[in-house]
């Protein structure tokens, strides 16, 4: 499917090879002008790209470098780049503070909230797309519009009375509240872009509407599912506010646990930075390997109709 969408039709291809349309000679004079601009453009491109990359990478580089320094060296401007590296901070985070528990907590909450949100959100999005339920879609979107912090007190009140605060269940539910609208909206636009003729054909061949969804539409939606899943996972992994209030001592997630290194009268910058590296690296790796899906999924359906 994607092949037909990205490859130009045969007629266009032959045109690109040199077949002329009436009026085309008018475009010709622009070509030499473009060539004259060329020396300046690559320089500009390189400068802008380098600056942008530096801007985004500098804090990350500082974080990684600081995680390999002692607390005295972190503050020393003379040792910004040249210092004796140490792995003590990582030993402190993973050994003495046993961050594996928090890594598991974060991973478990992110995974469960993403999977449950997909299970609920994808059929909902399909229904909303195929039966044009715009009002229902708006209601779902409300969850994204309301600021999360205003929900915390009522949530805490309800969940505390249900004796759920401190467990994984409440964390997963709270993350689903934000992940679901995201998934529903992404998948809605994805389903909108899939031709209904395929499902009609499947039904002519004897499939039920649900069968057509499961066997035809869903397999075609893998890029969309991947995008929605990844974005939902990233949101959950990074979420601090809900986890701060709703987690318990044994279910703290990484963004909350990272503050263990900030005390009233001392800040352990080295361990704080190595914990930050541990929080950031998995999500960066996931994002790097899956960015192709995220981009294609986000733009799916963008040019429909």
């Amino acid at each position, binding site marked *: 499917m994607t092949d037909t969408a990205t490859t130009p039709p045969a007629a266009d291809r032959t045109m690109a090879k040199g077949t002329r349309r009436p009026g085309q000679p008018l475009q010709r004079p622009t070509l030499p002008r473009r060539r004259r601009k060329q020396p300046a453009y690559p320089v500009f491109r390189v400068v802008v790209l380098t600056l942008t990359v530096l801007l985004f990478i500098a804090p990350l580089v500082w974080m990684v470098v600081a995680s390999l320094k002692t607390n005295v060296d972190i503050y020393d401007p003379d040792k910004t780049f040249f210092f004796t590296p140490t792995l003590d901070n990582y030993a402190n985070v993973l050994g003495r503070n046993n961050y594996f528990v928090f890594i598991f907590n974060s991973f478990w909450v992110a995974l*469960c909230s993403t999977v449950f949100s997909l299970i609920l959100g994808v059929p909902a999005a399909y229904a909303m797309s195929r039966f044009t339920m715009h009002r229902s879609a708006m209601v779902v979107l409300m969850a994204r519009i309301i600021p999360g912090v205003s929900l*915390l007190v009522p949530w805490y009140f309800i969940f*505390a009375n249900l004796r759920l605060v*401190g467990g994984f269940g409440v964390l997963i539910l709270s993350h689903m509240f934000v992940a679901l609208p995201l998934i529903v909206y992404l998948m809605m636009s994805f389903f909108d872009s899939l031709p209904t003729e395929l499902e009609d054909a499947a039904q002519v061949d004897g499939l039920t509407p649900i069968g057509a969804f499961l066997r035809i539409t869903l397999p075609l939606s893998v890029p969309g599912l991947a995008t929605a899943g990844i974005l939902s996972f990233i949101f959950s992994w990074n979420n601090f506010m809900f986890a701060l209030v709703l987690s*318990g001592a044994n279910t703290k997630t990484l963004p*909350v646990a990272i503050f*263990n290194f*900030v005390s*009233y009268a*001392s800040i352990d910058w080295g361990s704080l930075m190595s914990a930050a590296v541990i929080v950031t690296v998995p999500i960066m790796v996931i994002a790097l390997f899956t960015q192709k899906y995220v981009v294609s999924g986000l733009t799916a359906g963008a040019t429909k109709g």
Partner: protein
Amino acid sequence: MKRHSAVRVAAMAAAALMAAGALASCGSGSGTPAADKESKTLRVTLANHVWTDTVKSRLPEFEKQTGLKVELSQYGEDQLSDQYNVKLNAGTSEIDVMMYRPLQEGKLFAKNAYLADLSDDVKTNKEWGWADFQSGPVLATTYKEKVVGVPIITEQEVLYYRKDLLKKAGLEVPKTMVELEAAAKVIKAQNPGVAGFVARTGKSAAVTQFSSFLYSFGGDFIDESGKSGVSSDAAKKAYAFYGGLIRNYGPANVSTDMSWPEAMAIFTQGKAGLYTEADSLYKNATDPVKSKVAKSVGFAPLPAGSSGSKAYNIPSWALGVNEASANQANAWKFIEWATSKAMTLEIQKAGVPGARTSVWSNPAGISTYPADLAATIAASTKNGVGHDRPLVIKVPESRDIVGNPIVVAITGGDSGAAADAAGAAFQKVLDAEK
């Protein structure tokens, strides 16, 4: 066919995960102790602090003594505050013992009836000795004549100085504000790249450390008649002096957003000669792992202004019992144990200044402190003022207001006019709280 089986596998995996997740959720949910009357599980919420580390290491003893199980939650200062705002507002009974900041949130919590009345509990056990606690901190944990908290950690403002730089300058440790300014000037002139004086510069963060200068110049945030004292002549002098010290003898291109981590870093990197700060942070300066000047740091009482040396002496943290807790009797048992003479002595030896007079007068209580710091604390406790910020309900807003003239003074603006403006704005806050 392949696609179908892939979908089927994915669906089955999802279903399995869902079931597992649901089980895990239920498991942890039902594992959360019920807030039954006099539950055997005690929920204690504490801040990240050396105090907490010591208490944590001794918890098994308490659990053995009482047969209770302590469930400890630990957070950074700001995160703890956010937690309380949400949970106490929702009327939670899931917190039994809470560590809180009497001067920052004590008045608000007491007014909202989040803190249980401990007036009877503190009197019950004579051996535990409520009378042993310093009067200034006790005042800060008392609201409308009811005891609502037990102070655990105290703090005074002291002068941190570099012995080597003062020696090089041929100067004695400054005893007055005039001598402080003169010493800062000489140190800056003699040592290129080293500031004469450094202190907090952030609008809100600097308020507490500025407060001792204000008192020593004869002022206060609120005057005796209950009106704003921020625009008084004494306050204007204090603003101009504190800001002037940093402007004239502080680090080059000084930021006006420094709290203690930044100011302390300048001092511990050897880039400043004199530094006024809370004594509770002293280990950051004397620990060679954190400080380059660990061996040459000295401590002295805050230099005297026109009204003498009046540093604050405050309880930075206290323990309280949640009014909505159904486990208040056990919560008190924990507080009694954690604030006992023996525990206070042990915690103080670990470097956390406590609030018990008997521990301060016990040589063992100051055995781990640098001798000059112990003497400084003893002196500051005598003349100490019991608050380091405006005693109001809206503390964060008030700190921003009264802290603004500090920044204006540092940046070379008209701090007198800024103090007048701050005085008017602060008076509005006071009027609104009446």
